[in-house]
């Protein structure tokens, strides 16, 4: 007689041999029970780390209703629009790497938080400390920074208030913030403008309790403003480009991704309109595939295609996935341009110091 045990009735996806070892190359599919789907009329918005841009491009290329309330002026050529990050995300907020950054972006869009930092000087011009790369040549004055920021935050509010589905890719736990008012920057002061002042700026690394609390705060704010919105959380598979902790960057990467992953999972328990999409797992654990570029950080197009195929198969209503994304988008998306990654300027800043 066969002995009974608690694993006798588990599904194939619960068994490594069935779900990983023997799956055909490219067919690893860790999505099990999606909580919602995306319809052709749903307004779909994106924010997050650099990896989130792959999703933006895919959505636009596949003819989704990619919601971009901060569009480029009609007279701006496509390459200029891309250079100014129009369409890179739903609004020109640049990379939103940390959860605290997202919470503050929400509060700034709602007018609840006005950071003390208004503009940073860079090469005789001025940039927005909270999105220093969206205007690559800088603004001519701090007043111009403020004026453009007003338009930007109005568009950002529309993203949060009107989107039906928001895809938020969690990227980092490490960041830099103001000691004055806690305002969180996407990159450290001095990297893309301004200058680092230990009296005014400090490093932080969100631990798991703080990450859970902060992400819950973001979810609660979003739901209060837009009760019908669905939130799809992902964790970026892109490792840290540098860690400010005095430990190996790989150890910091594992720590950071684990914290973000736990925070995302905690939201599933609290909010039935939040789901988690395992892009991190697809890139890092796909059997028989190596989806990282030679620098072991950038994700190769094959890996992105795998992620998008899985997303499409499970979350998209009634439209088969197609390689190459032949359907055009009404928005101008920087399809051919490199992925915009504010974090990479950290490496450039380190090299500029001669190291």
């Amino acid at each position, binding site marked *: 007689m066969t002995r009974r045990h608690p694993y006798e009735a588990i599904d194939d996806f619960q068994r490594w041999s069935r779900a990983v070892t023997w799956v055909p190359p490219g067919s690893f599919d860790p999505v099990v029970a999606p909580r919602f789907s995306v319809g052709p009329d749903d307004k779909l918005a994106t924010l997050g780390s650099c990896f989130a841009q792959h999703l933006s491009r895919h959505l636009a290329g596949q003819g989704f209703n990619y919601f971009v309330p901060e569009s480029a002026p009609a007279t701006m050529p496509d390459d200029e629009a891309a250079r100014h990050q129009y369409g890179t995300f739903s609004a020109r907020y640049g990379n939103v790497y940390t959860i605290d950054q997202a919470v503050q972006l929400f509060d700034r869009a709602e007018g609840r938080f006005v950071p003390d930092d208004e503009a940073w000087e860079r090469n005789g011009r001025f940039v927005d400390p909270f999105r220093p790369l969206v205007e690559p040549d800088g603004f001519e004055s701090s007043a111009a920074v403020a004026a453009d920021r007003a338009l930007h935050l109005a568009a950002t509010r529309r993203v949060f208030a009107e989107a039906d589905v928001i895809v938020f890719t969690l990227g980092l736990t490490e960041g830099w913030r103001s000691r004055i008012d806690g305002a969180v920057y996407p990159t450290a002061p001095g990297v893309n403008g301004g200058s680092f002042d230990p009296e005014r700026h400090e490093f932080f690394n969100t631990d798991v309790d703080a990450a859970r609390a902060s992400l819950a705060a973001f979810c609660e704010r979003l739901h209060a403003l837009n009760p019908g919105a669905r939130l799809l959380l992902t964790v970026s598979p892109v490792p840290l480009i540098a860690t400010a902790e005095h430990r190996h960057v790989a150890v910091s990467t594992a720590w950071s991704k684990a914290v973000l992953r736990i925070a995302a999972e905690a939201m599933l328990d609290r909010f039935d309109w939040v789901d988690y999409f395992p892009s991190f797992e697809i890139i890092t654990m796909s*059997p028989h*595939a190596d989806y990282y570029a030679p620098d072991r950080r950038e994700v190769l197009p094959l890996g992105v295609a795998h992620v998008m195929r899985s997303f499409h198969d499970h979350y998209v209503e009634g439209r088969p996935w197609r390689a190459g994304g032949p359907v055009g988008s009404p928005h101008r998306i920087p399809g051919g341009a490199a992925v915009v990654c504010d974090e990479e300027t950290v490496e450039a800043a380190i090299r500029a110091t001669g190291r």
Partner: protein
Amino acid sequence: MLATADALVTSMPEPDVRAAIERTASPAALIRVPQINFRGFHPDITHVPLAAGDGELFGIARAYHSRLVLWGWRRGVERDRILGWFEPDTLGAVGYGEAWNDAVELMRQATAESDLDLGDWLLALLGRGVFMHTDNHPRIDAIVQLARGVARVLAERVPAEASGAAGAIGPSERRSVAPIDEPWERVLTDGLGATAEIWPVYPPIAARLGVRGSWTWRLADGSLIDLAQFVDASLAGYRALDPRDVRLDHIDGDERFERELA
């Protein structure tokens, strides 16, 4: 030779081999290895037997033919329309997306009738990208991995006193000294890769398999041709052919082709 052999490693049909061993009163241990036929990367490849005799039709890529081009030729489809079939939707509709699982199942059956283990062979290769040049020409690492399996079985089965190349040492000692796991694929020449055809993994299929694809055929003489050249050269060869001289039942009888391409 068989009469004095310690082992016979073969992929020939077992009844024939058993008969030969008995006929020669050979003491050889029989090690059965599977023939490697794996269409997972190249589901469009087919072979065309001649109607008379045992031969097969040779085309631009010698014994390897495209099912799509053959089907188009048989139905008189014009060249440009055939070229248009090499895109994701059509390749999926004719079943090429399921080819991987079918190929694994066929290899599972083949290894079940052998003395080797499918997992030992296949799982070691999956992280190495496209390990087949064509449906029946393995890359050198696929051959080396098969040889590793053979070596392990030999170490278990060939008697300690056997006089073969391993010398008169016991099986356990042989296992420990046999350099089975050395990276032989790095020092051995890939003969098939150097001298025979290399069929591309079509990009829509490659994308599904997480490998890089191409539309470049490498012919046996070393020349490289693209998809249009391949289709043109294939059709030119077929036009000179009387369809009654070849057997194409395996293509004519495929309902998916009829449904999707007709």
